[in-house]
């Protein structure tokens, strides 16, 4: 096919493009570079010059942050909350989405339930947090990781239901009908056919929820006050109230909380970019 002239940018345009986009990328990545660099300094060196690279990189701040923030405990708590919530939400919203997609073929009720579950997207979390606090208090679930998990199961359902219902509705219904005529009950159809079929949407939902819940602050901040039950985001906020002026230690603490996600992000870049954007788009 003949190429049209203006589709081949001139050299000058090309150079301009690379200069401009490199500056933009640098501006965006710069805060991360700055915290990495300064986290390897001592407090004294930082106060003298926050801009230079560390002259003698030391792990002093990391040691202080690991101790002060008790990150071993907090990372474990967060991992527990995230893994169990993601698994829980995936199961109940996957079941619900399949139920809704099939129910909509039979009755209007399906659409009504769908609208109800998805409406949660529009509700700001600060609208519920006070009542959630008292709800967990009466259930004796304050200061318990399970309390936070239950709240996530309610508050983070909407987007997964939306994404998965959309996916199930895109599957031709004749497929499911044919399987059921073959004598496969709804439960077995779901487990043997639907679950393996929906691997792409499952991975989107898992990535989306993992990032959202790992970074969630409001719920654990309000619902947990015991030091040993905190998640990393709350622990990080706590560090900020104690060590705000000790910047290298703050930066080392930040590193402990962001490194796990960054590592997974760099391995699964494409899935992350696609999944997080699609989730936001539908949210």
């Amino acid at each position, binding site marked *: 096919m003949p190429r*049209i002239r*203006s589709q081949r940018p001139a050299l000058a345009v090309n150079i301009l*493009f690379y200069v401009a*986009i490199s500056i*933009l*990328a640098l501006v965006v990545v710069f*805060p*991360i570079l700055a915290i990495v660099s300064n986290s390897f300094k001592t407090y004294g060196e930082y*106060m003298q010059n*926050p*801009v230079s690279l560390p002259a003698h990189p030391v792990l002093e701040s990391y040691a202080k942050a690991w101790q002060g923030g008790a990150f071993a405990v907090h990372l474990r708590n967060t991992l527990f909350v995230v893994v169990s919530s993601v698994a829980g939400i995936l199961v109940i919203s996957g*079941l*619900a989405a*399949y139920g809704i997609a*099939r*129910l909509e073929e*039979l*009755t209007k009720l*399906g659409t009504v*339930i769908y609208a*109800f*579950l998805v409406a*949660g997207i*529009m*509700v*700001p*979390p*600060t*609208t519920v*947090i*006070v*009542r*959630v606090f008292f*709800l967990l208090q009466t259930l004796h679930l304050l200061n318990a990781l399970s309390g936070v998990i239950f*709240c996530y*199961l*309610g*508050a983070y*359902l*909407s987007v997964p239901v939306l994404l998965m219902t959309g996916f199930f509705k895109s599957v031709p219904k004749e497929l499911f009908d044919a399987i059921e005529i073959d004598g496969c009950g709804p439960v077995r159809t779901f487990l043997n056919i639907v679950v393996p079929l929906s691997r792409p949407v499952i991975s989107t939902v898992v990535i989306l929820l993992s*990032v959202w819940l*790992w970074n969630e*602050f409001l719920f654990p901040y309000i619902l947990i006050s015991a030091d040993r039950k905190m998640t990393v985001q709350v622990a*990080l906020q706590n560090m900020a*109230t104690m060590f705000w*002026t000790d910047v290298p230690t703050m930066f080392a*603490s930040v590193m402990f*909380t*962001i490194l796990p*996600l*960054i590592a997974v*992000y*760099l391995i699964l*870049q494409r899935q*992350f*970019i696609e999944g*997080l*954007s699609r989730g936001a*788009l539908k*949210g």
Partner: protein
Amino acid sequence: MKQYSRAQTRKIAVYLAFIAPALAFFSFFFVYPVLGTFELSLYRWDGLAPKVFVGLANLRFLLKDTSRMLTALSNTLFISVVTTITLNVGSLVIALMLARDRRLTELYKTLLFLPVVISRVASAIIFGCLLDPSSGFINYLLRAIGLGRLALPWLGTPVVSLLVISAIIIWGGIGVSMTIYIAGLKAIPTELTEAADIDGAGSMRKLRHITLPLLAPALTVNFCLVFISCLKVFDEPWLIYHATPPRISSTVSTIIVWEAFSGSQFGVSAAMAVLLFVLTLVLGFGVLFLLRARERRMY
């Protein structure tokens, strides 16, 4: 009323059972607290003594106490408008640069998307420390290059602290907005731009008359997305709160939490929450309808 056969009724029952767990958790841990907030907004309550029914007095109190209420409201709206416009213009420009596949585009996308996985708490701390008036990176740099006059106490200056909050949200939001715009740009059929090329249209005219109109749906989505998420902004202002004088950077959401858990004014907090709920619905759908109407006018 439609009649269902027995087999159909059975099927409906089975699928309802599929939905039941989600409905149960959603209703009990989410919808019930929302309704509870509406109820609580009609009472005076300090968290311990019995609740006293006061009707709309909490709301009237909020509307009269202009300093707190109006500051939080105007701060929130200011952050939302500034962030939404800047973020959308910025990520649209970036998307226009990255939509065509050239060498290294993937690397740039990876780098620009990186802040998306960083929590708002961490971002607030990173920016807070970098902008610290005495020991911060930015002010050190400004003084070093002789621009010491610009070395502001960023977080403690009215309006500037709100711009900092906007900057944090923009930083964390570029990745997603950019990706949505790139997807929108890639969906534009190349025949259209090629036809315009043949007609001799310059790149600015192509942008104005082909690309931007066809990008309207992506723009609508992005605008609403960012705007609604800004209306509920909590983490960033809360995190830099102790570094700023009170109220300079308070938002509706921080006031809700502050009134409840620090002021023990649960009724006032709930009234504020109801207000935020209504505000999000009205403004969210308002912006959506405006942009949708604009989309229709363009075709």
